[in-house]
């Protein structure tokens, strides 16, 4: 009898002890009306007309009372894809959709995701001709009565969406100039079950969809000195697929990593050059924080890439800042060893005084230091901007935005920073 009881208990444990989490993006390409629609071909001002703070009238139990609506784009060679994002104040939720026109309506097809869990589903939204699509399509950039209503349905997982969603335009997005929403690890972390890998080129392309205006990327060096995007000190299963290659990144050459190692969603480990190329030519991101994880490594190669891509950005007429991260004293010494360090844009984490001492235009305090407005004021007096990192708790994001005087917040959840920033009045 005792043996059977043990067997029963162990079977219960065996069937309950492991749960694997995933949040796969649902396949949302089965909306016939959307598929037969025509591309938007809008001007930038037409896209901007739709942006704003909206009041939710259906779906607020999941997405909150208000949302911020924003468009972004990625440029993939000859094609540019625009994404319609809705940043929600509840459950760190967001929508990401693509747009088309159909019978005078604007159709927005995509998915939604709650970042504080794994819930996701298909979203099919519409701006009807009489509810804003008419004047948006006609190109009225500043209509006197901007009465836009977005209606539609959302579902759970791969199921056809049936739950109602609607929201109505309330006011423009808040814009304090300058303020930067920075996304950590190229846009987001692997632990948040995003559809692309952290510190990948694919993630850089998604950053703006999720609210980021700039990125922090983590940099390590291969055995042959190639700077690559990789966070941890070792090749491991948190960041890469099972390849048999383990141990320190610097044990392997770039050719070896490129041939054998893939990030968890199958991407190659990108070089910093590939990442900067993607940022410059494929996104509208305006800030790149090169966070050097090997703090005692010479920064000559990073500085060369920084100069190269700042020059390319200037030639392309793009506003793009690329800054060398200086987290600790050894990194500062390596920075000062650069022959042209006085001209190298940088972001110093050590202190305001240290930032001023090395002519850094940016100071980056850790959020656990608190809302250090006195230090922020001191930095501003020196002409130094203050970037606080890394805030992921929605209430803290709200508090730091409301009470702090920072110039930027770095977060793993740029959508929640975007929401709290844009809905300010």
């Amino acid at each position, binding site marked *: 009898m005792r043996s059977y009881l*043990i*067997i029963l208990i162990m079977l219960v444990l*065996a069937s309950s002890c492991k749960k694997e989490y995933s949040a796969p993006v649902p396949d949302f390409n089965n909306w016939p009306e959307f598929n037969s629609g025509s591309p938007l071909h809008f001007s930038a001002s037409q896209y901007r007309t739709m942006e704003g703070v909206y009041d939710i009238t259906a779906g607020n139990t999941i997405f909150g009372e208000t949302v911020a609506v924003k468009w972004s784009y990625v440029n993939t060679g000859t094609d540019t894809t625009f994404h319609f994002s809705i940043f929600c104040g509840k459950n760190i939720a967001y929508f990401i959709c693509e747009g088309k026109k159909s019978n005078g309506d604007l159709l927005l097809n995509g998915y939604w995701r709650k970042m504080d869990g794994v819930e996701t589903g298909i979203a099919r939204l519409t701006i009807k001709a009489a509810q804003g699509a008419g004047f948006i399509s006609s190109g009225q950039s500043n209509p006197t009565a901007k009465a836009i209503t977005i209606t539609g349905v959302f579902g759970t997982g791969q199921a056809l969406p049936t739950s109602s969603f609607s929201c109505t335009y309330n006011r423009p997005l808040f814009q304090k100039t300058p303020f930067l929403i920075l996304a950590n690890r190229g846009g987001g972390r692997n632990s948040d079950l995003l559809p692309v890998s952290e510190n990948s080129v694919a993630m850089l392309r998604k950053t703006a969809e999720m609210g980021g205006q700039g990125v922090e990327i983590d940099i390590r060096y291969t055995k042959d000195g190639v700077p690559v995007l990789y966070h941890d000190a070792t090749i*491991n*299963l948190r960041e890469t697929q*099972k*390849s048999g*290659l*383990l*141990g320190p990144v610097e044990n392997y050459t770039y050719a070896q990593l490129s041939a054998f190692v893939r990030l968890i969603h199958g991407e190659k480990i990108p070089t910093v050059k590939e990442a900067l190329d993607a940022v410059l030519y494929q996104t509208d991101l305006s800030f790149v924080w090169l966070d050097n994880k090997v703090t005692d490594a010479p920064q000559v190669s990073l500085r060369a890439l920084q100069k190269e891509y700042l020059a390319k950005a200037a030639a392309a007429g793009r506003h793009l800042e690329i800054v060398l991260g200086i987290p600790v004293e050894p990194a500062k010494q390596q920075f000062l060893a650069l022959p042209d360090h006085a001209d190298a844009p940088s972001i110093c984490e050590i202190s305001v005084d240290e930032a001023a001492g090395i002519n850094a235009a940016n100071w980056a305090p850790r959020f656990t230091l608190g809302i250090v407005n006195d230090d922020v004021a001191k930095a501003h007096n020196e002409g130094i901007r203050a970037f606080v990192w890394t805030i992921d708790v929605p209430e803290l994001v709200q508090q730091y935005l409301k009470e702090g005087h920072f110039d930027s917040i770095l977060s793993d959840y740029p959508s929640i920073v975007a929401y709290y920033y844009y809905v300010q009045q």
Partner: protein
Amino acid sequence: MFSNKKIAILFCLIVLAAPGRVHAQDAKDTINDNVKVKGNYFVVLYAGGGLFSYLASVGPSGNATGIDITRLHPTGTFRLMWHPDHRLRLGIESGFQELYAYRLKDPADKGKVLLSAIPLMVDWSMAVTKRINVFAGIGAYLLTTRLDYNGKVYSNYLSLGFSAAVNYVQPITRRTGIGVEIKWADATQTRDFGVSGEILWVWKMLKW
């Protein structure tokens, strides 16, 4: 597909549900004769060798030409157990396991990878019958990558790991025996487990 944890629990299940008697007083039983004899303490060495197979898929995705995987590899176990005068025993285990190897299929882009491990385990063991013993180990695996592609790389990584084994030992003298063992081994940084079959030599090194 069973997860590693499920397999570990099912293994424990078999152990716990096994017959509760051990025939300890058999004079020919060289390994388990301490049980139920007060004051008998042994140190027993288990040394074994055999084949290990890593059952799960291997290699990165996105490789256009694919890979050739070798799944059967040599393995060896060295285990030192303290057998007190009760059923639960304690000891340490090490050895060597080649986990898996693969090579790129592309003839123009030759390269191969071999992943091996040295287990560093604390083992618990119990005699479930006169000849059959079960083992459970927890500790670490010192994983070593041997990469041969545009140069050779030897790279180490310390991973948390587990093992579980069941063996049958037949005494051949009062102090030695031979046996067979099936072992399940899981280094967390290899994500999936492997199993091995080994021939054992058992030696009661010390008695007091």
